[in-house]
């Protein structure tokens, strides 16, 4: 029980607030109640669509100056099988997705395992705008203005040990939020992995937003990976766990079709997928296909990571 000793000289509560202000407060509360009731009547999709600006974003030297795709293109054409396999399913079926509260468990071979709250990500790290090309294995591409944090800065805080050779990422499993998970279309949860040096590369970010606003559900809210020189599916969405591991993780697509998907999945016009030639791509919004660049055009930055490797074998 809280016993508060009052001193005679303390002001009484009625002395602090004037009568008019007190009445104003009542009116304010009444109006708020009305506003809340009104909001409750709004369709969920409308509420969910209210964008939340991210403050204090700085530009990045890694950004491309290519024109970005439109907001509608980036947010209505997505592969996110947790919401369904159609391209518009993620937008249509994500109304029950709740990006808050959200924590990422970080463990495995590191000295300081722990959790990373989504709020920590905003409060402790500088948010940068990174305008990257994004290339899907299905031979389409977009230019997306991500907002995010260099993954290396985050990983270092957990102090990976010398045994940590790879990093494994896991997406949430919850069929209430992810209706696509009601069917075993692919083995849930979605898992991806990077070699530690790939994860620590300055181009690799954990994205928290697009177009200066927090990530919409269909784009991987509240936090996803972005690895711009790899096919889009490597950039795992809605991350709940990051694990430092010694052995190469088996990604979901490797499990699904080992002959079609390798661990590296570097964008490579010279190595075709059984279903799609990777030589060219269609930038969403354009009519003609354009040639695909090795490492999606980020070769200068990342080619050295693979200089000893046969990328036909390690595709």
């Amino acid at each position, binding site marked *: 029980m809280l016993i508060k000793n009052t001193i005679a000289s303390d002001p009484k509560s009625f002395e602090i607030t004037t009568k008019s202000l007190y009445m104003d407060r009542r009116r304010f509360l009444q109006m708020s109640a009305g506003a809340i009731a009104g909001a409750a009547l709004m369709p969920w999709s409308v509420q969910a669509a209210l964008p939340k600006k991210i403050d204090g974003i700085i530009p990045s030297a890694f950004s491309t100056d290519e024109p970005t795709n439109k907001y509608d293109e980036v947010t209505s054409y997505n592969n996110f099988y947790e919401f369904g396999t159609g391209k518009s399913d993620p937008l249509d079926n994500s109304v029950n997705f709740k990006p808050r509260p959200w924590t990422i468990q970080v463990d495995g071979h590191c000295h300081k395992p722990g959790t990373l709250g989504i709020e920590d990500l905003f409060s402790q790290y500088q948010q940068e705008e990174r305008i990257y090309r994004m290339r899907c294995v299905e031979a389409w591409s977009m230019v997306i203005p991500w907002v995010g944090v260099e993954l290396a800065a985050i990983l270092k805080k957990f102090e990976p040990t010398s045994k940590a050779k790879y990093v494994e990422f896991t997406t949430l499993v919850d069929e209430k939020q992810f209706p696509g998970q009601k069917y075993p279309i692919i083995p849930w949860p979605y898992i991806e992995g990077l070699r530690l040096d790939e994860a620590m590369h300055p181009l690799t970010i954990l994205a928290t937003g697009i177009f200066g606003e927090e990530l919409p559900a269909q784009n991987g809210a509240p936090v996803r990976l972005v690895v711009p020189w790899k096919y889009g599916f490597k950039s795992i969405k809605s991350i709940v766990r990051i694990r430092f591991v010694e052995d190469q993780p088996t990604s979901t697509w490797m499990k699904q079709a080992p002959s079609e998907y390798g661990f590296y999945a570097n964008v490579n016009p010279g190595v075709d997928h059984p279903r799609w030639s990777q030589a*060219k791509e269609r930038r969403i919004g354009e009519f003609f296909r354009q040639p695909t660049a090795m490492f999606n055009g980020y070769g200068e930055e990342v080619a050295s990571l693979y200089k000893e490797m046969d990328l036909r074998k390690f595709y």
Partner: protein
Amino acid sequence: MKKLSLKPVVFLVFFSPFLWLVYGVFAGKLGANPIEYVLRDLGDWTLRFLLLGLAVSTTRRLTGWNGVMRYRRMIGLFAFFYGFLHLSVYIGVDHFFDWATIWKDIVKRPYITIGMAAFIFLIPLAVTSPKAMVRKIGPARWKKLHQLVYVIAVFGVVHFFLLVKADVREPLLYMAVLIFLLGERFYRNVSAFRRPYHS
């Protein structure tokens, strides 16, 4: 008195997916990647008309409704129409006549090879669709030729099955319909063979 023909109405119904696509293209209602949308939709309709064509004689046998046969040629020609557009969009829009890439696709990717073969087989069937052609080549040979539709339908379903990345529920549905339609024929032939002296 001659019965009122429903053919113009049926024609319009079968034509409407195409009209809807044309409207969608011009109204910008086909999403962020309209080329992919159009290609897929035309492919879907090709397969649907192929199966619908096979369902005609099945329907007649199961319901005794002979009138359904009147629409078989039209259905078959619509399968060809949508198949032709599907292939045209693949060649002329998706790859913009990049023959080198298209040829590599045909040689390297079984689903393209099979899809292409299915379309090539459709051509003689479309060409011999007029009634005059039946007389010209003789009903027996005509019938034999048009049995190619079984191969085409199987190729069509396999084509769809092979191009799907992970979720095979939709191609499985088409496969189930095809198995039912072919199974009904198989069952009928076997039963006919078993009682050769009846009828």
